[in-house]
């Protein structure tokens, strides 16, 4: 490709490849030829005044490589890559919504995150978008009529699951075409609770953004905050004290513990196993209490800050944490027995919603979903952050790829998390837990990813040398895993939709930033 490509290593991941607009497809293609297991992590749009920048963050061999390209704002057209990587479909639809990029050849260029009655040609993340003005004048904007509740086309019945449905705790919609009891086609629609946090982050200081991004998701709040502060620290070049790294690791693992246990209990509810739900949530409660003890709140920890952690660990707290997690670990034996032996539980989850390794790779799924399909990815191992490089723990994988395996992976990870916390407490270094950082961040850009409970969480932050970020891009794990749900549900039984859906641990508050 010669002159059309410029490679800069050690920048935006392992390397940044700058290409001309037409060459993005070829570059992705050659990346895929070099490594069949390569996938897409995120697609970041960037307003560059006269141009729109597009960054394809690709994942290959556990590291991120960024392909940069620019297209004119007046005529924002670019060829799609979703035929090469089906997992890119959602990313392209999101960029089309927020930046007005037209992806030529996209199989389904419908709106994804913006509401149906959002004015045409108003792209919220462009810097010149006059949103208040446009919305004030948008009374006449045509509102697309919602699809009717259920309609039939011959033998095929169209069932709408959502936006309000007892199986979904958050608003999203799935149009499911059903023939008899078999699911033929699934069409997801998200964005019902889109809050525009990426835009809001541009209007707040870095300090305030830590609390803002923390609220993207209630469950994995610490992961969001940690990922954001790490990205900012990368731009600043801040060296975080070792003690802060260990403390962050503990908070993050507590976060993972309560998230996994929440999901395992919730899975019980979805398959009508209320006792499992009650027991699991009962045993999750001590984890919440520990979070409250260490950070001051049982859910939103607000523990992370740029340059370290906000609250030091008291020596008196250590024995309490240790006894609690030891008790929890003992209780896990009971759940292992239950998950492995209880027939009514297994009959509902085993061989239900199977995601093969090939499909999982093609759809670029992340986290426990990928690990349950036999893909050994875990950011904590691939690119260790915080104290994970120093703490020994096992990477859990299973080969079955069904709902049961996805739940088992999480059960195994609960035990691993307990071990990590235990190790971190034993090897806690002394020293400062926080360093002072400037409020104004030097110009630069950085990407970062962490392993959130639901999978790889990705952040891109660009600074222009002010106290306000120029762009904050968030790619949440669920956003990457929704295409997998379509794959899992199609061809399965309609009654299996809830258990296989919940085994993905979807979080729509995350997805609709």
């Amino acid at each position, binding site marked *: 490709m010669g002159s059309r490509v410029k490679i800069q290593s050690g920048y935006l991941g392992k390397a940044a490849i700058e290409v001309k607009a037409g060459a993005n497809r070829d570059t992705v293609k050659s990346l895929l030829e070099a490594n069949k297991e390569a996938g897409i992590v995120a697609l970041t749009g960037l307003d560059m005044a006269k141009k729109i920048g597009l960054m394809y963050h690709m994942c290959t061999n556990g590291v991120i490589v960024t392909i940069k390209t620019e297209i004119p704002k007046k005529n924002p057209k670019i060829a799609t890559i979703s035929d090469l990587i089906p997992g890119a479909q959602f990313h392209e639809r999101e960029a089309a919504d927020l930046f007005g990029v037209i992806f030529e050849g996209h199989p389904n260029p419908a709106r994804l995150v913006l509401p149906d009655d959002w004015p045409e040609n108003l792209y919220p993340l462009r810097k010149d978008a006059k949103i208040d003005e446009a919305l004030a004048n948008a009374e006449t904007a045509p509102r697309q009529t919602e699809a009717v*509740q*259920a309609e039939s086309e011959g033998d095929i019945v169209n069932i709408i699951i959502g936006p309000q*449905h007892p*199986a979904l705790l958050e608003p999203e919609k799935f149009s499911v075409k059903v023939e008899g*009891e078999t699911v033929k086609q699934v069409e997801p629609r998200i964005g019902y609770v889109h809050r525009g946090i990426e835009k809001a982050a541009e209007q707040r200081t870095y300090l305030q953004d830590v609390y803002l991004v923390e609220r993207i998701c209630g469950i994995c709040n610490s992961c969001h905050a940690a990922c954001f502060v790490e990205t900012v620290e990368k731009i600043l070049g801040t060296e975080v004290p070792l003690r802060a790294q260990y403390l962050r690791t503990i908070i993050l693992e507590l976060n993972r513990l309560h998230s996994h246990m929440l999901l395992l209990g919730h899975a019980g509810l979805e398959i009508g196993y209320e006792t499992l739900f*009650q027991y699991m949530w009962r045993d999750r409660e001590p984890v919440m209490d520990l979070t409250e003890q260490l950070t001051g709140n049982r859910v939103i920890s607000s523990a992370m800050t740029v340059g370290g952690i906000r609250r030091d660990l008291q020596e008196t707290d250590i024995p309490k944490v240790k006894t609690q997690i030891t008790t929890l670990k003992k209780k896990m034996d009971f759940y292992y027995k239950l998950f492995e032996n209880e027939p*009514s539980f297994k009959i509902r989850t085993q061989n239900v919603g199977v995601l093969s390794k090939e499909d999982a790779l093609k759809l670029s799924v992340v986290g426990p979903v990928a690990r349950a399909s036999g893909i050994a990815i875990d950011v904590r191992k691939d690119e260790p952050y915080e104290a994970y490089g120093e703490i020994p723990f096992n990477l859990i994988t299973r080969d079955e790829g069904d709902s049961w395996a996805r739940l088992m992976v999480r059960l195994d990870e609960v035990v691993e998390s307990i071990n990590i916390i235990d190790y971190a407490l034993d090897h806690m270094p002394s020293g400062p837990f926080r360093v002072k950082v400037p409020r104004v961040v030097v110009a630069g850009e950085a990407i970062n990813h962490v392993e959130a409970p639901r999978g790889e969480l990705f952040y891109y932050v660009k600074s222009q040398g002010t106290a306000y970020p120029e762009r904050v891009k968030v790619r949440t794990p669920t956003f990457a895993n929704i295409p997998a749900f379509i794959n899992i549900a199609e061809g399965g*039984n*309609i009654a299996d939709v809830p258990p296989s859906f919940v085994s993905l641990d979807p979080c729509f508050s995350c997805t609709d930033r």
Partner: protein
Amino acid sequence: MVVDLWFVFRVLVFPGFTFIFFFTMFCDWMERKIEARMQNRVGPAFTGPAGILQPFADIIKLLSKEDIIPSGAKRNVFRLAPILAFSFVVFAFSFLPIDGSAVIPNSSFAGDLIFVMALITIANFFLFLSGWASSNPYGDIGATRVLTQFLGYDIPLTLLALAPAFIAGSLTISVIAANQYLPFAILAPWAFVLFIVTLQAELEKDPFDIPHAESEVIGGLETEFGGGKLAFLRLTRDVQIVFGAALVVELFLGGPYGPVFFGLPELWYFLWFVLKILAVVLITEYVTCLFARLRIDQVLSGNWKVLLPLSVLSLALTVAVATWIYPLVM
């Protein structure tokens, strides 16, 4: 005239409608309390002592709510079906001997076991009608599930109910109950266990509560119901559960009969009856807590491939044992 007043008292107050209603409420509270304790929760706690008035509060709350009839619903069926379903279950209940004799004195006749089972089937059919009449896709699915599940499990249930009838040599409930010097649960334990399992499916409790699977069909047949009608649907379900327990007591646990220590035998019979029902409720609630919900196709194939053959076998076994072995023993 005196006889008439006694009759009215028996039908309306004890052991008739009022007793059945209050006893159902009490069983409902027991059930919730047992389930809560098994799941390490408190359960109803604030309405009355230990929350015993909670079921009443729920019913009163529903009765005080606005009664809505959806525009697409079949109005008359929608209105009548819940009440009819409730009446049929209570009517069936009045044939069971509660304090030694049935609600309506001398109402038992040869073959009333079959009659009572038929009444219960009709009550379930009205439940189906109520879901179907609401013209809601979820109501439809829930109603169809009730029907498929109920009709399927009716066959093994009847076959299994024949076992005690055969041992007692009668199809009359009061005769079957009175003839148990040894409870039939001991004489024919296989039929007892299968009967409990089938009953669990009939009463739509876990692991067979497919018609109520809220993650799949929202509220099932109750989806469009609110206010007083929902109260009646709920009541129907609760009375059904108590009725199912009562049927087990009559057929397998010796009915209301038990040792009489002093005073009126009716009082003791009544006490035994209540205690035995609570024991059965405890067992069913235990099973409910123990399992996850099965899938509709698993439930149906479980019925046709497992329970039906087993119940036929059980009947054959009972017949063989009752004809050749028990006469030798007793």
